[in-house]
């Protein structure tokens, strides 16, 4: 495994993913804000949550990229389309499993079963995160395809 290459391209890919998601928010395609969603696990303060969540998100991106790199190593090659293919699988996993589990462990996220007590603050993402806007699945998909493509395209096997 090429540790230097991994150390370089993993954060680049994560930044690209984060930028695509933030851009989607700016273009009013989705309300999904991954750093805020992650950071609000630790604090209700919106500004602090975004900062903590950004750090947490970067670390996640780094850790997840290990799985990509492991796949590239086992295949003996890394290409942009192979990375994008893994990104596709990851985005499907995120949209169908992770967002569904989020309300279970997020201390400040409501679930569809919340109520009548109104206590927690973050709205549940719902199936495919559609509660955050109908275009959300597309944004998540594109972000992960780019993440995977960058890793696959730039990661050097040696």
């Amino acid at each position, binding site marked *: 495994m090429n540790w230097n290459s991994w150390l370089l391209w993993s954060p680049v890919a994560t930044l690209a993913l984060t930028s695509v998601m933030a851009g989607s928010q700016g273009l009013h395609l989705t309300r999904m804000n991954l750093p805020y969603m992650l950071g609000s696990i630790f604090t209700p303060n919106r500004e602090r949550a975004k900062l903590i969540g950004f750090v947490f998100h970067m670390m996640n991106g780094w850790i997840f990229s290990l799985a990509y790199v492991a796949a590239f190593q086992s295949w003996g090659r890394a290409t942009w389309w192979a990375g994008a293919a893994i990104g596709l699988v990851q985005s499907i996993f995120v949209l169908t499993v992770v967002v569904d589990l989020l309300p279970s462990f997020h201390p400040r996220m409501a679930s569809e079963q919340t109520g009548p007590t109104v206590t927690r603050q973050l*709205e549940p993402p719902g199936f495919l995160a*559609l*509660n955050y806007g109908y275009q959300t699945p597309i944004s998540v998909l594109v972000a992960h395809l780019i993440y995977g493509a960058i890793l696959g395209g730039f990661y050097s096997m040696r």
Partner: protein
Amino acid sequence: MPGASFSIAAPQNVRSNPNAIGDYAAIGDCRSAALVGRDGSIDWLCWPRFDSPSLFAALLDPSAGHWRIAPVGPFQTVRRYIENTNVLQTRFDTGSGSLLLTDLMPVASEEEKRRLMLPEREILRLVECERGEVELEWSIEPRPGYGVRSATVRRLGQLGFRAESPEGLLSLRTDLPAELREHGRIEGRARLSAGASAYASLTLAARDPAVLPPLGEWSHTALERTVRWWQGWASAARYEGPCREMVIRSALALKLMVYAPSGAVIAAPTTSLPERIGAPLNWDYRFCWLRDASLTVRALVGLGYVDEAHAFVNWLLHATRLTYPELRVLYDVHGNKPPDERVLHRLAGHQGSVPVRIGNLAADQRQLDVYGEVIDAVIHFVRAGGTLDRETEGVLRAWGEYVCRNWEQPDEGIWEPRTGRAHHTHSRVLCWVALDGLLQLHEKDHIRWAPLAMFEKNRELIRQEIEGRAWNPSLESYVAELDSDRLDATLLLLAWYGFEPARSDRMRATYRRIRQQLGAGDGLLYRYPRNQEPEREGDPVSPGEGAFGICSFWAAEYLALGGGTAEEARQLFEWLCGYANDVGLFAEEIDPGTGAALGNFPQAFTHVGLINAALSIARRLEGEAPIPRQVPHRQEGSEAEKTRV
């Protein structure tokens, strides 16, 4: 009036719906709601959430699904909610005995939910024979998709019945005798003697495997848990003024319309209940109108319910992100655009009132008053101790800038006519409220930076325009549209929003003119003159709708704010409360001739009007000044942290 009894004809095999709008009562769990008729029939239910397709819609068409439990033969009913709850009890008195039917959507605290395995959605019905012997009959016909589909029902022995629907798996368990008939109808008869009980539970599993709650003791535990939760919530209300019971009932009704998972507040849990029987004034209200929701939050904050305000403001900032800085008139409970409006031709309509519509075209309208309403809701939240973070400050600032750029534009206005835009006085006043509120928030450090010069200049320009062009000297009244001679009940709100003192000559003259031209008799008000109602789609003739519930309460509140004496305000208020149905609920409108409820039901807007009027009257009776509109200084430290959004 509460406690009154009514005779209902015995049901026939071919059932027609005997219930008028006011014959219903609502039960719910803050995610969905059902309407129960005086005849023991649940005729409206949308699962899993308020705006889902209906499962029972006999309210709109007798063949569109129902769930009925009632004695065989003639009976009289008396209904009530268990004190300070949304648990309904219907007592059927027959010649041979009496039967008590208790209807609820079980709820639990979040802590209890962590300990217990509970269904995703449930309606629980408990039947108890209190006296003598009563033969009852019951039937259920689930008709998913607004009555379009028949459910395929299967019997599962001791586990009851199950039916797949597009919304999930329906499970019915009961210890009543039950036979499965064609088209998914289940029915049965039973004879209960004094002291005997029976139970029925309908659950929905939308995604996960179904949880099938046991009956009997478990049902009683669920009832006790639900009663405890609602009574705990109601006990937090801070109100000691006139008609306390009605005010608490209104708060409970409003709470039913809060969608707890997101904090959104819907306008009403029904669609297409007519504003006039037989007319096409039928609209879908199962969405979150920012205006209605903001007013609801203001009412709940006034009663001390800050958590709901916190949740709503949080939802507001989240939901409006996709249209930022523009606000839509309405959103669904998760902040998305509601589905396009369409007509369900298959449904016969409530007492023949067609069309039945789902979705709402008003979603595409421009209503500039919304900015003032939501900023006013935020201000009420701040007054209740909330603080705003930088992102929220930015959102508020952007709304203010939008108002500065657009307040001169015509809009559809609060009543949402479908005939075009005009320069509405009410919208102008709310634009003034928006800028005035933002300037106050800035002055008290809640917004740390704002384009003050722009806000102040536009606030002044709006005031000048209203004072110059919305005042009609020959009519001696403010008017609904600039340079017009049309009246509108919204003009009563000028005092409430602090634009003009209630005691001013102009407001007193406006009130007199409104009473004269919009009075519907018996203290009621129309929202605009009947012969000047704007024509609406599909109804080229005068719509002839009823008196508008909230407008009538606005009049009582105007008197309390200084337009009249405290006693005048109290008397009018108490009189208006008498128009509620037997369990204390209001629809959108009231037929001035009969007092019957008209329009969607129960309607948040009317109950908001009741609560706000009550709060103002209580303060006036206690000799206090009207509810202060000043914004307090920004809180510091941990207290602020608790209520930050």
